[in-house]
């Protein structure tokens, strides 16, 4: 079984997961108590008018027909209208998506970059302060709930020492001109992204350090050293290269967690993104909006899982050849 078969298989699983989530969504919102028409139909409506509306909304169709229509509309990203704002959910999500992506990408790039760099550094200098720091940071990450840490930062830098804005993605009204606005957005980004980085980089550093230490104890490193290669060459050209595949996989494997974590980060910093949209919708019982936001997040997670599988297969020759390690 080659890489192609492996990929097809993973793609198939991704589709199954998507299908299960969609079906679950469908069932959940159909099982909900109450008559969906009661939201728009006044009790004074005549039975004929009610029947007409039910016909228009397809509520009398066989559940399977309803399910088919539902799947088809989701495939076209037709997510209905929000109860609260009466606007199409797709439009609202599309307004928020760039904000979520910018927060997400910034956090992620800095987290992984700083984490991997410090991890390599710590492995190169065993027993140094950096190594202690990395281990400590890793433990800190594990124990401290992200939202608590973010609340502390918000209180400290948003309210006590007022150097960062306390909420939102951009000042209201936004500053004039392109560059001032970019700067303003970056200013708003510092706390949410920064807190993600501080919380997240420790585990990256720890993972990289451990992988590097394992690599550095291998025979080929001793050989490389014995050849008289410089410490730099040994570290970067031999050891780092061999640990890159698992790290790259980890990059993609950590994507779903970040997407999920965005819900809390966005809520705390009132970030105008998809995660906060989900929470607001759920708290307001705005079901189409909640369903739409969940659909988008689920797709993001499934796609990043699939990307992880894809990259994992590419970088690990055992998968490429055998393909059985699922």
């Amino acid at each position, binding site marked *: 079984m080659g890489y192609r078969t492996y990929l097809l298989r993973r793609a198939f699983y991704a589709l199954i997961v998507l299908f299960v989530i969609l079906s679950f969504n469908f069932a959940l919102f159909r099982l909900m108590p109450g008559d969906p028409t009661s939201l728009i139909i006044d009790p004074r409506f005549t039975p004929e008018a009610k029947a007409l509306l039910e016909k228009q909304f397809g509520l009398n169709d066989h559940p399977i027909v309803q399910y088919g229509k539902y799947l088809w509309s989701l495939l076209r990203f037709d997510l209905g209208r929000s109860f609260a704002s009466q606007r199409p959910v797709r439009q609202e999500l599309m307004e928020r998506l760039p904000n979520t992506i910018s927060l997400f990408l910034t956090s992620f790039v800095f987290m992984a970059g700083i984490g991997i760099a410090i991890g390599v550094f710590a492995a190169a200098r065993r027993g140094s302060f950096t190594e202690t720091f990395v281990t400590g940071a890793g433990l800190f990450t594990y124990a401290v709930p992200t939202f608590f840490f973010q609340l502390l930062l918000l*209180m400290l830098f948003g309210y006590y020492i007022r150097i960062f804005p306390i909420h939102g993605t951009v000042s209201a009204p936004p500053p004039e001109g392109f560059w001032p606005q970019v700067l303003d957005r970056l200013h708003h980004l510092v706390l949410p992204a920064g807190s993600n980085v501080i919380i*997240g980089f420790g*585990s990256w550093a720890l993972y990289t350090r451990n992988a590097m230490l394992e690599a550095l104890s291998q025979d080929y490193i001793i050989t490389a050293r014995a050849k008289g290669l410089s410490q730099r060459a040994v570290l970067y050209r031999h050891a780092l290269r061999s640990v890159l595949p698992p790290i790259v996989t980890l990059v993609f*494997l950590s994507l779903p967690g970040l997407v999920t*974590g965005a819900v*809390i980060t966005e809520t705390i910093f009132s970030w105008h993104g998809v995660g906060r949209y989900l929470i607001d919708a759920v708290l307001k019982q705005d079901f189409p909006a909640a369903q739409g936001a969940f659909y988008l997040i689920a797709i993001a997670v499934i796609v990043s899982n699939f990307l992880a599988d894809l990259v994992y297969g590419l970088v690990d020759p055992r998968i490429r050849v055998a393909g059985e390690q699922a």
Partner: protein
Amino acid sequence: MSQALTASKAEVSPRGSKTGRMRSRSGFLGFWSQFFRRPYGVVGLALLAVYVILAVAAPWLTPYRPSDTFLADRLAAPSWAGIFPRFRGVPPTKRLVIPASDWKATGLVAATVTRQKVENNGEATVINLSPEATGSASADLSWTLSYPYDPPKTFEVNIPYAVEAPWDASTSLSFKVVDPSGTEHVVWEKTVYGSSDWKTQKLDSRDYTVKMALGLSFFDDPAQVVFAERGDYHLALHVESSGGSAPVRVTVGEVGFNVLGLLHGILGTDHMGADLWTQLLYGARISLIIGIVAAIMAVAIGTAIGLISGYMGGAVDEFLMRMADVFLSVPTLPILIILSAFFGKNLGNIIILVAAFAWMGTARVVRSQTLSLKQRAFVESARAAGASDGYIMVTHLLPNVFPLVVANAVLMMPVAILYEASLSFLGLGDPRIPTWGRMLQNARAFGAFTEFAWWWLIPPGLAITLLSLSFTLIGNAVNEVLNPRYRERA
């Protein structure tokens, strides 16, 4: 809290003690003697013991219930914060009941003051006025209050009173606060025509009637105006009657005077004046229950699925493992958010939901262990002896995977606690129950930030952190003792 990072840590972290020998003794005692050789395991256990003690002894460690409000003013700082310059001179809560014998009559015009026992109201001050002779009569009573603090935000006055008078008498009562520089602040004025039965006038400095009596506007703060200085205040009660054709008798019960403090208890108060230390203690109960019950449920589900999947193999295995894959691929927090909104906000639902999305890791580990166990001779012989599949799974396989299960359960507890805290923090927790997540949510929603109420934010966060840390430390130690396979090869 990314799934992948957590998974990688699970592989990395159970390293540590290189001195740990292989298990020399087995059984309960052997386990503990091994466990206590691991310092971080002991630290974790000690931490957990502290939490358990606090949770169990909560009713004895605090005189309040979590639902008691206005024990002090809103956002009162902890008592010990008085050592910081910012809180020096901040008033503590004063709840005074002024006994009848303490009132000093300062001015009597055609009046006498006596005392009398009153049913349900202790001793009352009786003021006999005789306006029928002179046309009007009055009495002034005063009580000294020493107040060496900064202005409070709120004060309350309770005045129980009754008037017995002929129909043509008009009797007026007023309550004044005289500040150290002699300015009189009239807090309450009331005129009674004829008689009045027992009534208790309750005054709150935030009430608009009090502001009107003081001649303040709606946005002024009476407490800041009245108690602007430090020193000896006089609370003064003035009673005046005129026009009556017969003697008038005014009875004033025990006057209550409260200053709601801005320093309170061990951890201060929240936006409702509720005691945060109490909330923290009762929150420990909830977190421990959730952590333990949800983790045990999750691990039980995981173990059952892992055993069946590993032992049965074939299509069953394929189906169950694909199911685990699906559950692993679903974004956990968002689906918990949706489901908890759907099923309703109560503790049982949250526990079940958390368990329903946390069993997959255990299932995988147990399955792989079962796969290797079922090749062993003892399983073969049990099967040859005619044992049923269920019997083999329960009596032969389960005890062998049990060490794994125990370690998994302990390591699952912080995960469950964090999920519940996240849900409560997002406003999806059980609204009737004080949890740490809800404390944090309240702190965020009701002004801990603008008032810089660190005593509201830090304790619950720290409590969650240390509790998950203790479970993690214990879990890793248990894992090392019970599953030596995970130990680093020296």
